[in-house]
């Protein structure tokens, strides 16, 4: 059975069974991943995947079912109807109607035009570049290249039809360096169009590891903190659920009802930009046209992120932030590309402004040490100690703790050094951020 036959049969059957509307979300893709270890390929994976999710609206409720076996549309629809029948929530869940979209051009990522054997050669070279960069590099714990490409077809019985294709590339290296008994690891990645920049990636990863040698904790206490871009991206990703209107409506976000209020320092502007060249997209997970908007502007919360359900409930328009984590997942809400607007200060200026305090380059434990409901976080961190505006020594084995809402209010300066990262699979961009105070546990 071909997919178009499957889709037609599923929608016809849903209609016969009394569904008010039905929607199919089809995704297929290929992926390639290779990891080099001591000049050999020690992990290599290629794939072809496809799956389809059906969503039905049945007696005012919605139900989902997903399958990777494109063979029995009726059984799938029956599962979805069954699931709809047990829903008790009274929320309306409209489906999108036919839309027109603006044309979005996404440039091909670096590994697209490279053959598989050349991609293998590329990671082997990345490994040898890391090993050659410094005598203290002992091994490369991870040294990988990943390429993926996929297509999405979203169609429903209300006339919606939206399609997109995309591809992505990423390389990353995690060298481990040793000096005496001490072992440290470093990390760097390159993605999108830069994913063939082996030299830059190797150099940054090794420098990151070497910079940590000799690191030790600082005394416990309160510190002024300069969060470097990747650390800030991690925090933005971890606390992005706070901006979801769904969480707000469920009583799970401290930002509920705060639209129009000052929730951050006046220096803070936060964009949700679906057209950012790193990952542009024309429509969201429900087929709603995407649009760029300030979520926070000069410290004021302008909007939460909505999909069709939360927008209907709040009496507003969807912001085009419906997400499908995968074809198998139900419709949720997530940022598109979340970007914290840069300031004017260079990194050096920020260090002098920090004067005495901590520069945090790296956070760990993001999946455990953050509470997106209370905004509290307590995370393992590493970085450098600054004294009198000069970087003194590496710092490791500390935790930093604070509250995200307080942190956003405590921002006193932003750098001009914007970096993009992909924590938790989303796109986040941030510059260095100077924060008035965080609590540090060290010695």
């Amino acid at each position, binding site marked *: 059975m071909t997919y178009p036959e499957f889709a037609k049969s599923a929608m016809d059957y849903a209609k016969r069974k009394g569904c008010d509307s039905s929607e199919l979300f089809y995704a297929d893709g290929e992926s390639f991943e290779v990891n080099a270890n001591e000049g050999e390929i020690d992990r290599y*994976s290629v794939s072809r995947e496809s799956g389809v999710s059906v969503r039905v609206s049945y007696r005012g409720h919605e139900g989902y079912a997903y399958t990777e076996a494109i063979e029995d549309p009726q059984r799938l629809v029956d599962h979805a109807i*069954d699931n709809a029948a047990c829903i008790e929530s009274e929320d309306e869940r409209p489906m999108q109607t036919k839309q027109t979209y603006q044309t979005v051009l996404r440039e091909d990522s670096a590994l697209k035009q490279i053959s598989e054997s050349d991609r293998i050669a590329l990671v082997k070279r990345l490994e040898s570049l890391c090993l050659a960069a410094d005598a203290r590099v002992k091994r490369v714990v991870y040294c990988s290249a990943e390429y993926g490409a996929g297509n999405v077809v979203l169609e429903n019985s209300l006339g919606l039809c939206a399609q997109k294709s995309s591809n992505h590339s990423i390389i990353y290296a995690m060298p481990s360096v040793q000096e005496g008994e001490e072992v440290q690891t470093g990390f760097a990645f390159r993605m999108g169009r830069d994913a063939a920049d082996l030299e830059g990636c190797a150099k940054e990863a090794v420098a990151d590891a070497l910079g940590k040698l000799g690191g030790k904790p600082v005394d416990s206490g309160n510190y002024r903190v300069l969060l470097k871009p990747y650390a800030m991206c991690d925090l933005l990703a971890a606390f992005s659920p706070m901006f979801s209107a769904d969480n707000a409506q469920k009583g799970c976000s401290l930002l509920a009802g705060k639209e129009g209020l000052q929730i951050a320092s006046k220096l803070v502007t936060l964009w949700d930009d679906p057209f950012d060249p790193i990952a542009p997209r024309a429509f969201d997970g429900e087929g709603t046209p995407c649009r760029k908007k300030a979520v926070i502007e000069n410290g004021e919360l302008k909007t939460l992120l909505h999909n069709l359900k939360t927008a209907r409930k709040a009496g507003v328009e969807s912001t085009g932030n419906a997400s499908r984590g995968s074809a*198998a997942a139900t419709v949720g809400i997530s940022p598109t590309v979340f970007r914290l607007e840069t300031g004017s200060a260079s990194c050096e200026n920020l260090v002098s402004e920090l004067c005495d305090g901590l520069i945090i380059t790296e956070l*760990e*434990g993001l999946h455990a040490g953050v509470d997106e409901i209370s905004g509290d976080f307590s995370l393992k961190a590493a970085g450098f100690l600054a004294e009198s505006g000069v970087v003194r020594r590496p710092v490791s084995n500390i935790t930093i703790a604070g509250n995200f809402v307080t942190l956003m209010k405590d921002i006193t300066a932003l750098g001009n050094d914007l970096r993009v990262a992909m924590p938790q699979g989303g796109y986040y961009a941030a510059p260095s951020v100077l924060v008035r105070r965080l609590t540090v546990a060290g*010695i």
Partner: protein
Amino acid sequence: MPDQKQLNLFRIDEGTALAVLREAQRSGADYAELFLEDTESTRIEMIDGKVESANYTRICGAGVRVLLGTQCAYAYSADTGKQALLKTARAAAAAIGEAKHAPNGEIAFSMQRFTTPVSQPFDEVGNADRVAVMRLGARAMKDESPEVTQAMVRYLDSVQRVMLFSTDGVFVSDERPRTRIFLQAVAMKNGEAQTGFSGPGCCRGFEAYHNGIDVEQNARIAAKMAVTMLHAPECPAGRLPVVIDGGFGGVIFHEACGHSLEATAVGRNNSVFCEKLNTKIASDCVSAVDDGTMPGEWGSINVDDEGGMPRRNLLIENGILKGYLIDKLGSRRMNLPSTGSSRRQGYTFAPTSRMTNTFICAGSDDEDEMIATMGEGLFAKMMGGGSVNPATGEFNFSVAEGYWVKNGAIVSPVRGATLIGKGSEVLQRIDRVGKTMWMEAGMCGSLSGAVPTNVGQPRIRISCMTIGGKGGAIE
């Protein structure tokens, strides 16, 4: 006698499997394996007593893995037709070298069929039954306190059906039912919110909810945790003794030690425990085990994902390192036999060495005495999650429910605590191990995806550890 139901599910016969393995060996691989999966799951989410969403998913596909010495390649596809399987095999083979003639000869498959005893299969349970169980949990959380502003219940059941063929003659079919109910309470007051949770799970059918998993009891634990933490001051920061309670407290061992004992880390020289077999790595009172054979437990397996039999793997005995967790590839790298520890989330992942039910064994110390004699420090009653860098052994994890201890007595609950340290150092600093061990369910993420694992331990004490929190430094 081959299992006809299983064979029909994947529409594959021994001849096809043989052809696929031979195709996979075309470029000289000395081992090839075909893994087929068909997994059906139901997920339901309830918020404040109302069903919010319900989803059914069916994951199916196949993966082919080849090994040549310590080189490994994996290819997978959602299409399990014969032509697609052959194509997948060719893709895996191509990664290792140029295609030559496929090797000839038969492989003598010896069929082994595994099932998990189930008295109430999930496909005979309706959503109404599932929702009724969830409602018990939602109600119990709300009833616990008016400060519980929101009660969330997430329910999952799934049956993973797999088949495995390898050039070693492995021909295995397995049926793996699992269910878990995750209860989360949010308590809110004056713009502050705290959460509490409990998430029991097991490797059984729906009967688990009538006999085994007490949903209401777990709901009360979650609600109490949220309310207690709502009234707790911030945890102070510093280096002090820490007592970690049993059950989910075992996540410390899982993160700080377990991951560093996996062949994934040890076999590639990325672990602090390399070449430490039969040496002392922990204090005398510590013994630890990974046991995949415990009937019905969340982390248990009938057979591993290379066809190996799970077993009780002794990891540490009285402080001495006794064993690692080893899969086939790790076995080749380490020159040690496999330990029945090869696992994967599903067909989109090549298998690797993973934990099952991992715990610190019961010791002989009194649970109350270890708090009474600790002076000042933290009693971590319930742990959150955590992670570890296996190359350095540095770990971090969060404390979901903590209490501050002064002069050997609990003085106050504290919120927002984090524990960090190095596995190798913490193991040496365990100075008390209690008498009663229990386990709790978790999901463990690593190279081969997310797999269900149990963590466990009795109550233990660590003489000194870094405690992070924003309640200021300890005076």
